[in-house]
C-alpha cells in the first residue's frame, strides 16, 4: 500500500514536471534582476505645516558596475569624490592618451588631490578596461 503511494507520487511528479517543461518551452517568464534596482519611494502629499518650504525626496543613486581589475578601488575612492563613476562608464571607448588627459584634467584643472603614486594606478585601470581595444561592458 505504502509503495503504491510512493509510486503514484513519483509518477505524478514526473508527469507534472514533463508537462510544465513542455509548457515552459513555449515561452519565457519569471526573470528578475537586482542589477539595476532603482526603486524610489513615492512622495507623501505635501503638508501645510511646511509653509514656504518646497522639497523633494532624496535623489536616487544608480551606481554602475565598474570592470573588475587592479585599480578599481582607487578609481572608486578618488574619482567618486565629486562625481559618480557613471562618468566613466557613460563614455565611449576612448584612446589611452585621452584617459591619461582626463585624469590630468581632474588633478590640474578641477583640483582633485590624487597622490602621485595613485595617479598611474588610476590611469592604467582606465586604459586596461575602457579603450576601443579592450572595453567589454
Amino acid at each position: 500500500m505504502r509503495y503504491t503511494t510512493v509510486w503514484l507520487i513519483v509518477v505524478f511528479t514526473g508527469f507534472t514536471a514533463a508537462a510544465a517543461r513542455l509548457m515552459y518551452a513555449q515561452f519565457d517568464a519569471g526573470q528578475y534582476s537586482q542589477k539595476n534596482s532603482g526603486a524610489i519611494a513615492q512622495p507623501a502629499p505635501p503638508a501645510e505645516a511646511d509653509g514656504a518650504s518646497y522639497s523633494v525626496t532624496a535623489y536616487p543613486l544608480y551606481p554602475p558596475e565598474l570592470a573588475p581589475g587592479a585599480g578599481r578601488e582607487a578609481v572608486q575612492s578618488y574619482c567618486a569624490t565629486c562625481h559618480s563613476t557613471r562618468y566613466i562608464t557613460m563614455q565611449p571607448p576612448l584612446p589611452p592618451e585621452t584617459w591619461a588627459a582626463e585624469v590630468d584634467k581632474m588633478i590640474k584643472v578641477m583640483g582633485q588631490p590624487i597622490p602621485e603614486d595613485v595617479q598611474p594606478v588610476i590611469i592604467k585601470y582606465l586604459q586596461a578596461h575602457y579603450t576601443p581595444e579592450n572595453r567589454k561592458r
Partner: protein
Amino acid sequence: MNEHRRLSRRGLLQSLATAAGLAATAGFGAATNLLPQQSQVSGDEKSLPTFTGPAPNPYWNSVGPVVQYPQKFPLVLLTDRPIQLETPRHYFETAFTPNGAFYVRWHLDEIPNAVDLSVWRLSVEGSVERPLKLSMSDLTSKFKPLSVAAVNQCSGNSRSKLQPRVPGGQWGDGAMGNAKWTGASLRELLDSAKIKPDALAVQFQGLDKGKGPEGRGSHEFLKSLDLKDSVLDDSIIAYAMNDEPLPMLNGFPVRLVVPGYFATYWVKSLSFIRVLDKADENFWMKTAYRVPDTPRGNTNPEDVKGGKVRTVPITRMPVRSFIVTPNGEKKLIAQLPVIIRGIAFSGYGSVNKMEVSVDNGKSWASAQLGEGHGPYSFRTWSIAWTPPHPGRYVLAARATDGKGNVQPDEGVWNPGGYLWNRIEREQVVVGRAS
C-alpha cells in the same frame, strides 16, 4: 512582439492539451524549479548595449537605462551624481515638452532637495548703485510678468554622434526641451539695481555647489553674459515653466531663461546676479563651453593638437530639426498613408521652411509647418507620405530659419562636442500589404 506573444499563447494551449488530465495545480509551482535554465531570452540580450563607440551612437537617444527621479517621468540616465537625464524621443511629438519629461543636466553634485522661500532671496550685487535682495513675492509683484516660449538645448546635445567621439556627456538627441517660461524681465531687474558705468558683464550663480576646492570649476558653476549683449533684453528670470512651478531638478525656484542661447547660460536655482567690472575668467567661461571661432564651430583633432584653434564662448543654437514619427521601431505597410511628423527650431529666429525627403536626401518636398509660438519655440511640422512599395526607405528632414540658415548635410567636430546640427535621418522598413 505581439505576434510573438500570440504564437506563444497558441503553443501554450497545445501543451495544455497534451497535459490534459494532469491538471495538478499543486505541481505547477514545484515544477518550475525543475526546469532547465532558459535565460536565452534574458532582458540583457533584448536590451540596448551599455555603451556605444568608437563609431557614432546609432540610436536617437543615448543608451543608458530608463530611471525614476522625483517629480519626473522615467527618463534616460546619463549620470546619477551630478544628475544628467535625457528626454525620450516620443515626448517631442508636441511643441511643448512636459515638465516631468524635461531633460536634466547639473554640473555639480550638491543640488537642492528643498528650498525655503521664507529664507531664499535672489541677490543682485557687484557693480550696482542699489544692491537688491528679492524674495519670490518681490519677483512676482514688483516686476511685470513676461512669458516666452523658448527651447532649452544642452550645448552637447547629440555629442554621441561626433566622429571621432569626444569625452563628455554622451547625449543622444534628447538633451533639449521647449517650455513656456514666465518670469521677471532681467533688464528691468538690472535697471532697478542701477548698473554702474564701469560694468562689463553680468554673472549668474545658482544654489549648486561641488566638492572641489574653492576657485575651481569643480566647486562653483558660474556663467556670465556681456552687458552689451542684446540677448539680455530677451532674458527672463523664470518662476514658472509651462504655467507650473519649476521642478526641483529643472531649477526651482527660479532659473535664467536666455532665448536662442544654449542652455549653459540658463542658470538653475538662480540666486546670485553679480555685475562685474572686468571680464569673467572663471573655468565655466574661460575654459569650458567654448567653440572654435570658425564656420559652424568646426575644426579637427590635428589643428587642436597643434594649438591652432582660437575659441569663443558658445552662444546661439544653430538651426535643427528632428523626425519624431515614424521612428523606425515598427514596419509601415505599402500603400498605407502615414504622416511624418517632427519639430524644428533655431536660435536665430523662427524656422519658416521645412523639407522632407523619403529617398535619403536625393529629392525634397515641403512639409506643412504647425502653429508658431514665437521665434525661439519648437515648431511642429508634418507631411503625408504613402510608401509606394515594400522595402527600406531613408527619411530625412531639413529646416531653414528666418535668417536663411539651412541645415547642412555634413557633421561638425570640435573637442567639446558642441553645435551638432546635421540633417537627421530615419530608416523605415515597409512591408507588403498582402
